[in-house]
């Protein structure tokens, strides 16, 4: 008994009024009632908890069973079975077993109450104990105990047993259930179909498993004989010792032989609802056959003589093997191919089928065709075939730009379920359209031109040229510098890109490159002037930066204006050319129609009439399309004159449509004569239109910039004259050189050959010695010289080998300089080693190296000197007449050089008007001037060989330049608008539409040393074994 429990005084009368208690319904009596109420509630709680947990388990198992079916059907089935069992088990355990264990004894409930309701403490436990003690022989005062019990009753009635009920477990179980339901729902909803299929599978197979067929085998091993359909070409096949499982193509006849486990009167095969009687021989040997048509199963059935079934064997599967459709693959050409009109296309393909192909066709269609057309291809193999077909598209008369779709289609030989079709991927062939490519190029150029206009406007409206420049505003315009620079780069890039494309207008890409290059420099100057101005403004320094910026901006504007106009003129020209081309197309179409009408007139063939009407309709839509395009182009031409002319021509074409409508009407009325007359009228009109367009083009070129045109023409004339004069002068020099060379050759043959072997040997020895010097032995600064001396000595050796004493002398001189530097470095090394207090051995090695390099240097010097001695002063080999002629030629060459400078000046002047020349052209002309200057010096120095070489080089530069200029002007009719000169290196390869020039073998006198050195360097590269001799002979021939 708990002495600490507050025990009310016994003296307190029973009827003493207790403090007023809130009225409450009496649900139990005394403490016993309280305990019973608590136990009831507690049990209810635990059953609820058990039910929730059980249900959670059930849900989890059902949920997982669907998901587990895929990896493991067994696991799914276990889940399914566990679900109800586990659910009930948990409920029983938590809701019944556990309460019984917890609450079978009142004392447990009393203790729990005491714990949960502190006011009661353990009084009720004491009461239970007392009550039990009273029932035995008490060793205490029973009255007192009963008084206590009464008091406990009274107190107990004041409390609500719910207070002592623990609901946490139920709540927890509820949460668990909710979580499980949530997780399972999420998993199921993620793949509801899969879950359901899994559950179904688990359930159904459980069901099947639950309903096992108890059919026992009633036959032994089965022998199967397959007789395949004829189209397969397969031989019959017999398979013995099987369990009867059949796998065959549809249409295969299967014969079975087996032996029954008992004697039977009759036997059958049951396939679905059909029955196939078996032949019974000897009471137990069974045989029969049936044709396989679909997958399924069959079984053996035994019957009595009266037909009553006595036994049934298990189901044996029948598997129908599929006959696959043919596979066709186009291996060549590529999916999209662009070809020239009339070009043949080689199609490469493979076709295969499991049993055989019956046909292979090429199916194609162009936009103008109302239906697909087919070409039957040859099949030499039935099952697997790789073939080629050279497709001549010329017959289809596809127009440029037209796109043809095609594929291959093959049929197999399936006679059972019908021939199946297999097709290849659909591919496309487009007829190359120069117009489209040019149009594309024009569009690209036009977009850049538009940006150039915008750039020009930004410059014109910018603050750079205003008298009072505001540094902030000027600084803001750095963005224009950047965008301008970007634009120039893009122009150059697009120009180069277009130059590699076939049929891209040459003048357009050349102009883009020229504009990009020239303007880039101007933009850069403006940009740097701006930076200078901004810096000077910030530092308040007076650097004349404002004026410099203004000037740079002005010059850039001038350049941009010129570029805008020139590019625009070229674009307009292109558009006019396209209009002319379209007009020609229209004319061509008209001629075709006229020829059809003429034919029809003669034959009166109704089929021809249909074709003629179709052609007329096609022509009309084509003319409409062409005219729409022409109108677009004409509107895009901004040139004052060209616009007027182009639109005027276009205006004339409006009547063409009306005339063609008349032609169509007349053809409908079968009035061929009138239609022809009308077509003739159209022809005249078209002719006139073409003439006018041609005139417009010429007029346009004449009016564009007469001043520039005149300058350009003068330049071309001067260039021609200069080239001619240079040629004449070079020819004269050549004559002198020939005499000089003859004398030199004689001298070299005499003296040079005598020392050749000796020098070669010496050069080789020295070279070998240098090779033995490691890089670490010398100062790192001598590395370059070490390499050089070896290379030059090798050159000396090679040159001597081919009797080129001139080159050998030059290489020897270079080798001598390098050898001297090496010796100097080696001389320093011992001093340095001593200064660094290196070990004596190191110092000794350095001294040895110095001695070696000095000796080698001496040898190289000796080689060089001996070679130099072979060459006397050129003038000593010339006659007085030649000397005088050379002097005269030197003077003339100098004057010609001035003329070349004049040409360069003219180029500059023209460059102020239009971007005709790019930096490359300028460089070319500069090189011409340099060559001429060099030639002049050589001639004055009485050196006819090198003088002639320089002259020849200058002449070739000039001729090349002239050729490029001529090509740039293209098909122009003479003295027209100057086209930009092709910039830099030209494209090459298939795309080039310029004439293929033969490779020019440079004259040996042209830049002799560099050229021959290049050849000798090239000789060092290993050639393929097969060609070694040829290569060697080639070089030797060249250098001679």
């Amino acid at each position: 008994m708990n002495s600490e429990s507050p025990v009310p005084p016994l003296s307190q009368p029973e009827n003493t009024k207790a403090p007023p208690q809130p009225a409450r319904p009496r649900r139990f009596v005394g403490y016993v009632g309280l305990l019973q109420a608590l136990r009831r509630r507690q049990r209810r709680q635990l059953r609820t908890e058990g039910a929730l947990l059980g249900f959670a388990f059930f849900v989890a198992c059902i949920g997982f069973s669907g998901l587990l079916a895929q990896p493991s059907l067994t696991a799914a089935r276990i889940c399914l079975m566990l679900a109800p069992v586990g659910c009930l088990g948990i409920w029983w355990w938590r809701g019944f077993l556990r309460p019984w264990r917890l609450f079978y004894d009142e004392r447990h409930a009393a203790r729990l109450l005491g714990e949960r309701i502190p006011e009661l403490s353990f009084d009720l436990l004491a009461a239970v104990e007392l009550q039990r003690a009273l029932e035995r022989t008490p060793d205490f005062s029973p009255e007192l105990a009963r008084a206590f019990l009464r008091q406990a009753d009274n107190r107990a009635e004041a409390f609500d047993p719910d207070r002592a009920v623990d609901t946490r477990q139920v709540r927890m179980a509820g949460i668990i259930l909710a979580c499980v339901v949530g997780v399972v729902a999420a998993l199921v909803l993620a793949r509801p179909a899969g879950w359901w299929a899994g559950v179904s599978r688990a359930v159904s197979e459980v069901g099947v498993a639950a309903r096992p067929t108890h059919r026992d085998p009633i036959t032994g091993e089965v022998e199967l004989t397959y007789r395949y359909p004829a189209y397969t070409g397969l031989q019959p096949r017999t398979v013995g010792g099987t369990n009867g499982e059949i796998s065959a193509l549809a249409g295969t006849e299967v014969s079975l032989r087996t032996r029954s486990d008992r004697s039977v009167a009759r036997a059958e095969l049951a396939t679905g609802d059909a029955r196939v009687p078996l032949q019974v021989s000897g009471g137990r040997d069974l045989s029969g056959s049936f044709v396989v048509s679909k997958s399924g199963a069959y079984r053996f059935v035994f019957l009595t003589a009266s037909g009553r079934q006595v036994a049934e064997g298990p189901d044996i599967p029948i598997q129908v093997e599929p006959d696959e459709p043919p596979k066709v693959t186009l291996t060549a050409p590529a999916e999209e191919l662009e070809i020239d009109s009339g070009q043949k296309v080689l199609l490469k393909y493979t076709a295969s089928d499991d049993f055989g192909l019956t046909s292979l066709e090429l199916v194609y269609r162009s936009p103008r065709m109302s239906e697909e057309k087919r070409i039957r291809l040859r099949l030499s193999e039935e099952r697997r075939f790789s073939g080629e077909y050279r497709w001549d598209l010329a017959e289809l008369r596809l127009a440029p730009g037209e796109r043809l779709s095609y594929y291959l289609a093959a049929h197999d030989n399936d006679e059972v379920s019908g021939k199946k079709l297999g097709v290849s991927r659909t591919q496309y062939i487009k007829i190359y359209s120069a117009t489209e490519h040019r149009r594309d190029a024009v569009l690209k150029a036009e977009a850049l031109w538009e940006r150039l206009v915008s750039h020009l406007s930004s410059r014109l409206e910018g603050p750079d040229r205003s008298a009072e420049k505001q540094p902030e505003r000027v600084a803001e315009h750095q963005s224009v510098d950047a965008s301008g620079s970007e634009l120039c780069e893009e122009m150059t890039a697009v120009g180069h890109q277009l130059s590699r494309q076939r049929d891209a207008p040459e003048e357009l890409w050349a102009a883009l490159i020229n504009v990009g290059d020239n303007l880039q420099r101007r933009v850069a100057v403006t940009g740097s002037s701006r930076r200078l101005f901004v810096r000077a403004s910030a530092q308040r320094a007076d650097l004349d930066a404002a004026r410099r910026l203004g000037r740079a901006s002005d010059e850039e504007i001038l350049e941009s204006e010129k570029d805008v106009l020139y590019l625009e003129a070229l674009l307009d020209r292109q558009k006019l050319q396209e209009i002319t081309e379209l007009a020609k197309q229209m004319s061509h179409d008209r001629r075709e129609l006229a020829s059809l009408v003429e034919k029809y007139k003669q034959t009166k063939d109704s089929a021809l009439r249909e074709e003629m009407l179709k052609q007329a309709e096609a022509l009309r839509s084509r003319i409409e399309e062409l005219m729409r395009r022409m109108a677009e182009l004409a509107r895009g031409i901004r040139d004052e004159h060209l616009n007027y002319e182009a639109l005027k021509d276009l205006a004339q074409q409006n009547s063409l449509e009306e005339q063609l409508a008349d032609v169509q009407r007349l053809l409908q009325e079968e009035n061929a004569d009138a239609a022809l007359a009308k077509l003739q009228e159209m022809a005249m009109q078209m002719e006139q239109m073409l003439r006018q367009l041609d005139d417009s083009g010429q007029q346009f070129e004449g009016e564009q910039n007469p001043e520039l045109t005149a300058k350009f023409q003068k330049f071309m004339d001067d260039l021609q004259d200069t080239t001619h004069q240079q040629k004449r002068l070079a020819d004269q020099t050549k004559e002198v050189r020939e005499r000089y060379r003859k004398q030199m050759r004689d001298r070299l043959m005499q003296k040079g050959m005598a020392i050749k072997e000796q020098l070669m040997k010496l050069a080789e020895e020295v070279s070998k010695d240098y090779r033995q010097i490691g890089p670490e032995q010398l100062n790192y600064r001598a590395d370059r010289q070490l390499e050089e001396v070896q290379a030059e000595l090798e050159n000396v050796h090679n040159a001597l080998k081919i009797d080129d004493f001139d080159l050998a002398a030059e290489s020897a001189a270079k080798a001598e300089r390098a050898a001297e530097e090496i010796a100097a470095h080696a001389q320093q090394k011992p001093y340095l080693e001593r200064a660094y207090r290196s070990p004596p051995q190191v110092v000794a090695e350095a001294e040895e190296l110095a001695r070696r390099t000095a000796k080698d240097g001496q040898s190289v010097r000796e080689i060089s000197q001996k070679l130099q001695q072979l060459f006397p002063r050129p003038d000593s080999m010339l006659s007085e007449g030649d000397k005088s002629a050379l002097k005269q030629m030197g003077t003339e060459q100098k004057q010609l050089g001035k003329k070349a400078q004049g040409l360069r000046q003219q180029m500059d002047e023209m460059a102020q008007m239009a971007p005709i020349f790019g930096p490359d052209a300028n460089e070319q002309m500069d090189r011409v001037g340099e060559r001429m200057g060099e030639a002049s010096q050589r001639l004055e120095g009485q050196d006819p060989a090198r003088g002639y070489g320089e002259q020849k080089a200058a002449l070739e530069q000039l001729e090349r330049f002239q050729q490029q200029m001529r090509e740039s002007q293209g098909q122009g009719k003479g003295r027209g608008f100057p086209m930009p000169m092709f910039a830099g290196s030209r494209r090459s390869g298939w795309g080039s539409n310029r004439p293929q020039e033969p490779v020019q073998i440079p004259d040996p006198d042209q830049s002799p040393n560099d050229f021959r050195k290049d050849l000798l360097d090239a000789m060092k590269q290993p050639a393929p074994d097969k060609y070694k001799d040829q290569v060697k002979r080639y070089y030797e021939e060249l250098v001679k």
Partner: protein
Amino acid sequence: MRSVAPALLAFVLSSRALAQDLRPEIKSELQHIEQAINDWDIAGAKKALVGLEQVAPPDVEPLQYYKGRIAFEEGRYEEAVSALTAAGIPDKPGSYLRLAKDTRKVMEHHRRAESEHFIFFYPEGKDEVLAPYALETLEAIRTALGTDLGYQPPGKTRVEVVNDARELAKVSTLTYQQISTTGTIAICKFSKLIITSPKAVVRGYDWQDTLAHEFTHLVVTQESRNTVPIWLHEGIAKYLESRWRGGPGLSISPSTLALLGERVKKGKLISFEKMHPSIALLPSAEDAATAFAEVFFAVDLIYREQGAAGLRAIIDKLARGAEEKAALEAATERPFGAFEKGWMAHMKKQPFPKEFIPLSDQKVVLKEQAPAGNKDKGRKGKEINFSDFAEVEEVGARKMAHLGELMRERGHALAAADEYGKARSLVGDKYESISNKYALALLELHRVDEAEQVLQAALRLHPGSPATNVHLGRIFLFKKQFDRARVAYRSALASDPFDEEIHLSLVRIETALGSKELAQRARGAAMVLTGLPAEMVDRVANTIGKNDRPLSEANLPTQPETRESPESVISRRDEPDGGNL
């Protein structure tokens, strides 16, 4: 006409009807009628015919023929066709019957407007706007010529407007080829004036001066009984054509003056002898222009020395049958040689413009000969048009102007002004296209005063330029200088009457100046051209020059689809250019 008539008369007299023996007095009377018609004395011819009808049998074919001729001259085309058919005239190209039929067809749907002395026939549609201005011009020139030449045609003169050059060819004896190569735009023939609608010409033309010019021809022909030689005819007509708007001799253009100055300087003038038989037969257009300028100054000299009486005297002498030289000598009271010398001296004294001005603005370009882009420019908007610079001969200036237009097209007004400025510095005011585009760029930048200066300078060399006048009008309206704006817009209207901007602006101007009648006239024209109702026209007109829109663009109403009445849409659809709004 003169060449056609005798042939026809011969045909008539040799026809089957005349194979019967006509009495000699009838033959003589017929010849009298023929002569009267040739002398443009239709009243006299009609009187003679009435007299002849009373004595000759009614079925005589020549009677029907002249009845038809007179009916044709008087504009009674239905009657003319009946009578000429009855006369057995063949219906073939060049015959009077074909002419009458063609004219009847062309005039079939024409509408008419009348004043005291004129009946103005015009095609349905926007030509309606011409009527009040044309009648005003004609009445004014009639009054002025009555004073100067002492003659006014009796009755009401017919004026017929044709849609285009093809119609002009049909109603005249000229071929289409002749019309298009010579640039003929109006003729005075068959006792009436025939004028091509300005809508047929790319930039319009000085149609009011042309009306006055042709009426002068009519007066001179009738007064002189068709005896004045062509060169003098042209000289008098050109000299007096400006009388409807002021004094004589105002209509010679600076470009013609400049050309004459150049020729005077080089001594390459055209002699009177070379002008025979027709100035139009001179080898080049430049020679023809020079010849016209020369005869203009010949008339100018006579007018200055003798006044209008001098001209009257020449016409009178010629009408009486005097020779050209004699008539001139009599009128100038000096020998022909002396007159020639004086004339040369007079020409040399003229203040020729220093710059050479191209003649292109004088050239009439028919729309059907113009490129598609110029035929129907649509709404004016920013007036972007590169072909305007085709006339600029100086390559540098043309290129700069071209760049300016590129910039303006892209909304870079400042850059455009820069480029135009460069172009103008190269060629000055020589080309109205450059000046106008420069002014438009300046207006876009709100540099109004600068733009006005540029335009005023351009007007000095191209006084009748409708574009320059319209742009100036905008500036004056903006500055509320209504009087000056009125002059500018009226000058523009004299060449380009179908520009709705002109009429809308005139509504505002006349309203501001309190001229209710003129405002109403402009309103009517604006309604025809825009298809807007009166109140809408007033509302639009009231906003012109007031809102914030730049002066570089025409402040025209947007074109709601519902604003046109069905009738106007139908009538305009029939027009060759579909209504150039």
